[in-house]
């Protein structure tokens, strides 16, 4: 089932007008694949490769370089917690522990049994003054503390 049909194809075509080369649309195209399918599969990479006149191996080399492209399906809510030093010294590790406990995900990188949550640690999210920032899919949440975790998770269906 191709990703780039109809309106989605039109979006790619518009993107292509912004750059002098097709290759430059690679990162944006991969974002579209992830938006549409939730992750970037081998099939997605092959489709993008064909459209942009690249090889699948080349596309894969790019995908594996960047941490935000998922190369396998993740929980419905992909939770990323910053634990780099500025947040680390403000209790980020405790936020991680609280999230793992309350989501029942078991361990970092694993998906909870109900398929809703995957929790990972990430590097500096660029909101250090609002420790601890947490991203849930595309949503960016500032100033998360262990105490706020249960309420935060309660808002997620």
């Amino acid at each position: 089932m191709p990703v780039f049909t109809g309106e989605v194809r039109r979006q790619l075509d518009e993107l292509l007008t912004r750059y002098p080369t097709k290759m430059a649309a690679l990162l944006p195209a991969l974002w579209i694949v992830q938006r549409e399918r939730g992750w970037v599969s081998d099939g997605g990479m092959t489709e993008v490769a064909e459209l942009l006149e690249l090889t699948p191996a080349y596309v894969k080399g790019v995908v594996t370089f960047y941490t935000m492209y998922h190369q396998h399906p993740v929980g419905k809510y992909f939770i990323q917690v910053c634990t780099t030093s500025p947040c680390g010294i403000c209790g980020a590790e405790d936020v991680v522990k609280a999230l793992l406990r309350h989501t029942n995900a078991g361990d970092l990188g694993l998906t909870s049994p109900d398929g809703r949550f995957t929790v990972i640690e990430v590097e500096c999210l660029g909101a250090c003054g609002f420790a601890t920032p947490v991203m849930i899919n595309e949503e960016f949440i500032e100033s998360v503390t262990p105490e706020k975790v249960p309420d935060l998770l309660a808002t997620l269906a």
Partner: protein
Amino acid sequence: MGYPNLPHQRETTVLSQYFGDAEARTLAGWKKRGGYKALEKALGMAPADIVNVVKESGLRGRGGAGFPTGMKWSFMKPGDGKPHYLCCNADESEPGTFKDRELMRWTPHALVEGCAIGAYAIGAETAYVYIRGEFTEPLHWMEEAVKEAYAAGIIGKNAMGSGKRIDVHVHKGAGAYICGEETALMNSLEGRRGNPRIKPPFPAVSGVFGMPTTINNVETLIAAAPILLNGADWYKKMSLSNPKSTGTKLFSVCGNVQRPGTYEVVMGFPFKEFLYDLCGGPAHGRKFKAVIPGGASVPIQTVEEAEATLMDYEGFVAQGSMLGSGGVIVIDDAQSMVSVIARIARFFAHESCAQCTQCREGTAWTTKIMERIRDGQGTTEDLDTLLDIADQMTGKTICVLSDSCAVPVVSGIKKFRGEFEALIQGRRFHPVVAAVA
């Protein structure tokens, strides 16, 4: 008091005056606040004149390198028949730094205006704003602002009726600190792995798509507008210590401090007063132990060094560190320096692009040794090995991520050796007991 707090009276809010002001984000709101007057003025000037004003002002790159902006713009040769490009580096990923995020989510039109001015000044018709993928809000507001600006004819094929074409495109990153390095940014923009390039050739000669390119930080580009409106002298006068450091700087303050946030002060501001007065000092019952004043890549300062510092490029160097990105990480006496440095090393090991041997292997090796020391399994030989590895990682690679990993290790061992040795000798780290009341 630095956003998200209200401005402190000793701040000088030029770029940050609309932080928290939701209306400033729309075109109508921005125009009400004097927006796009600078661009209008710029489009009526010759590009070379704009470059001269910026040169005169003493504006230096606000991303961390501190390179004189006017001089960088002057490297773009006009009339060479090649398309020129402006890249705005909005990849802000240096631990401790979060000022560009604020600038983009509160004053996105300021950045559109800054990009337009910069593009026009360097003879570019296309500007790409490379925003890190995690910056959901900045991405949203920048996309909106660009849309509004196109709809109003401010940018596009006839920018503000000037007959000049200026295109601004937002480009979303995908999770790589190294893409904040200017040549890696260009590679990433081109659809490649974010590997830094060897210089020469320099971007102004052969940059993105092989064409002459200038890469500027968000704060730098936004600063161009008030400089054009108020004049170079106005900017130069804002300098409390060294005439080579002019204007205001946004400092992102985080860590163990009462009021973390984004502060804007004049260059040369006394750091001691900044930390204790503006930022509110340490948490109740705690004392400061160390400060990393410019993002994780700059040397760690002892409290004594920090308290003696005047906040500008030369001032930080004089006190054993660097201004860098202005990301101030404050560490109190509850923290283990070894843990902090081990986590910073892990950061760099995660972000290494893997091209250069010393970085690819050295960042990971450093991390492993640091974590072993942190966990009580270190030996005295480890300290010598760490310093040796740090020496091999310095000055020998394509970019300075490698050097950046070495810096906290070297400054940490030099200034906090006691904590390393204690752990090696088997004494577990205990935070200093907080004073009561």
